[in-house]
């Protein structure tokens, strides 16, 4: 069962949340961030090349121009491969674990999987960063102390959706975690 809704992130950009319910025990949430805008790309390229041309008129060395082109290309490739995240996915599978995938603009995917045995809970936390923002995070169990928390793993770090989107995801996650808690409570 697939479902798509549009939300906005904390800066006002448009986000698209795709929900897929594969089975009662497996759900996937996919947040697509706004793409790289042509306007900002053109602006940066023009600035760099104008600066290089200015230096060229001062120094009369044509190496500066080729260096500027080289730097722009490398910078763009590096940005697409290491910085620009296109899509963030949260896959929650009952009694297996939670998987977070970030897909970069160049196609690279980086995945983290947390086993269900380590997950204590999924909560929405508040943070103060020039204003109050909300973020969804996974609390991990402490192996030493049974009621303690060893780590807080934030989810959707680069998409940064607003509270309404987070509430949708939170409700679905809690439904699945409720099965898990019921199963671990019964012998």
């Amino acid at each position, binding site marked *: 069962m697939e479902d798509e809704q549009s939300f906005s992130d904390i800066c006002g950009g448009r986000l698209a949340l795709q929900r*897929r319910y*594969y*089975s*009662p*025990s*497996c759900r*996937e949430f996919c947040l697509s961030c706004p793409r790289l805008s042509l306007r900002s790309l053109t602006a940066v390229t023009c600035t760099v090349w104008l600066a290089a041309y200015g230096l060229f008129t001062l120094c009369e060395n044509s190496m500066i121009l080729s260096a500027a082109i080289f730097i722009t290309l490398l910078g763009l490739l590096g940005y697409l491969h290491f910085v620009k995240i296109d899509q963030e996915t949260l*896959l929650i*599978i*009952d*009694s*297996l*674990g939670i*998987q977070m*995938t970030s897909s970069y603009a160049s196609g690279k995917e980086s*995945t*983290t*999987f947390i*086993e269900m*045995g*380590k997950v204590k809970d999924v909560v929405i936390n508040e943070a103060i960063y020039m204003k109050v923002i909300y973020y969804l995070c996974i609390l991990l169990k402490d192996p030493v102390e049974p009621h303690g928390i060893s780590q807080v793993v934030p989810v959707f770090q680069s998409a940064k959706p607003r509270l309404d989107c987070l509430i949708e995801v939170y409700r679905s996650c809690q439904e699945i975690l409720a099965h*898990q808690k019921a*199963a*671990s409570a019964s012998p």
Partner: protein
Amino acid sequence: MVLKAFFPTCCASADSGLLVGRWVPEQSSAVVLAVVHFPFIPIQVKELLAQVHQAGHVGLAVLGTWCHRRQGAEERLGPFLEGLGAIFSHEPWLQLCRERTSGLWSCKATCQQGPARVKDQVMLVFYDQRQVLLSQLHPPAALPDRQAGDAAASAEGLAAVFDTVARSEALFRSDRFDEGPVRLSHWQSEGVEASILAELAKRASGPVCRLLACLLSLISAASACRVFKLRPLSFIWSKLAVCGQLGHRLEQLELVFSTQKAEKPAQLMRKANVLVSVLLDVALGLALLSWLHGKDRIGQLAEALVPVADHVAEALRHLLQWLMGAPAGLKMNRALDQVLGRFFLYHLHLWISYVHLLSPFIEHILWHVGLSACLGLTVALSTLSDIIALLTFHIYCFYVYGARLYCLKICGLSSLWRLFRGKKWNVLRQRVDSCSYDLDQLFIGTLLFTVLLFLLPTTALYYLVFTLLRLLVVAMQGLIHLLVDLVNSLPLYSLGLRLCRPYRLAAGVKFRVLEHEAGRPLRLLMQINPLPYGRVVHAYRLPSCGCHPTHSWGSLCRKLFFGELIYPWRQRGDKQD
């Protein structure tokens, strides 16, 4: 809990049969390892499972039935398969089924005990058996030793799947061409994986290792003999970087060619890393050697060396003349200035005379030292660092003279300053106490204090200049040492493995949901998530020479201010000078 069935991808096209594997009750998961095909004798299947249990200490059982059929052919097999459930009783009994034409899967799990219920929620997780068998999880789960008795694996979570597959290697040893009593389907059933080169290397490695181990023990015995322990030689040995590097390489080679087999995979990786690092080092060293010895470059270097030394001496002479005049507009104490300046000038003159004395022999020395590059690039770089140290020995001497003078002055000043205020350093109590001095003590003390205070700028300036020069030389040597450390400690074999066989070094797993139809069980594909490069280097980096600077920036500044001598590299086990 949802029942999870881990199914190997290689068995998805196998014929119908029995599912053999391990049931993990804590996670309610069934790890299927192989499919036993019809016809079989139940006793022989049970014997095979007992054999694997003895070899790997892993409790295998028949988990259920596997049915790969055409549509409509189920009526014949149905009761037969249910009858098998009575022979090999297992809770819960899995019944996996796949249709040949449409490729649709179906799965059922039944429990006989308690309320007879059929579990609807079964999840199929496909895994690549070969990759899971060969991969190592990082961090390694703390597992009990394989040899320690009958302890079954108690790994947590998904590490249990990896552990089960790794311990059941005995099950995968036969392929379909073997005339065994039981016919199995697993990742090696099309033919056991082997390579002629690997087998030959294994056979040859025994005698080669023994020979090289003998050779290396002879060399280390020779180097540890009494002659080299005598005072002047051992002092020189400890100061030269080349000896440290050669000793380090000898230790590493002893580790690689030791006749003991590596027990843990981490030790095997370390041996492989050391071997690849040594080979690369020697290859780069030979390349450097061929470059040096071609086109008479050694001659050119030797011819350029003496003029460079002369040039440096000339620059130092100018510097001393400048200090003896009015450096940077500061007014120095004329007499002290002249004394120090002339002393250093004479020292410089002596040094240059020695260098000129050596100049006819330099080419031969360089030629023979250049041969050391065949032992490795790191040895050549260490030799370079030692040559720089020897050529700038006069700068080191100037630094030591300036530092000692300055240190004496600072000590004198601080104790006379205490006298000026009427205090004294109490050695017994390690603190400053008040003290009443006599009049003539006070008079002499104040006089000396004034003298030392007004001579301070001159000494301080000489100290500053020579310390800066020394720090420059130390920085150059430090760069070379950094490069040597990099070649020494980079785990090239692990990086190569991560590049070419990423599934071998696993940070974890990742799941992908396969095509899902309503009414069919959920199917997931489990893949290996490889370790990122940074963590590979961090986990497998080799220990370096151990000559790292032991000071922090704060203590370094403190030592410079008080005029204490700084020794940037202390080898392990050195006595404090």
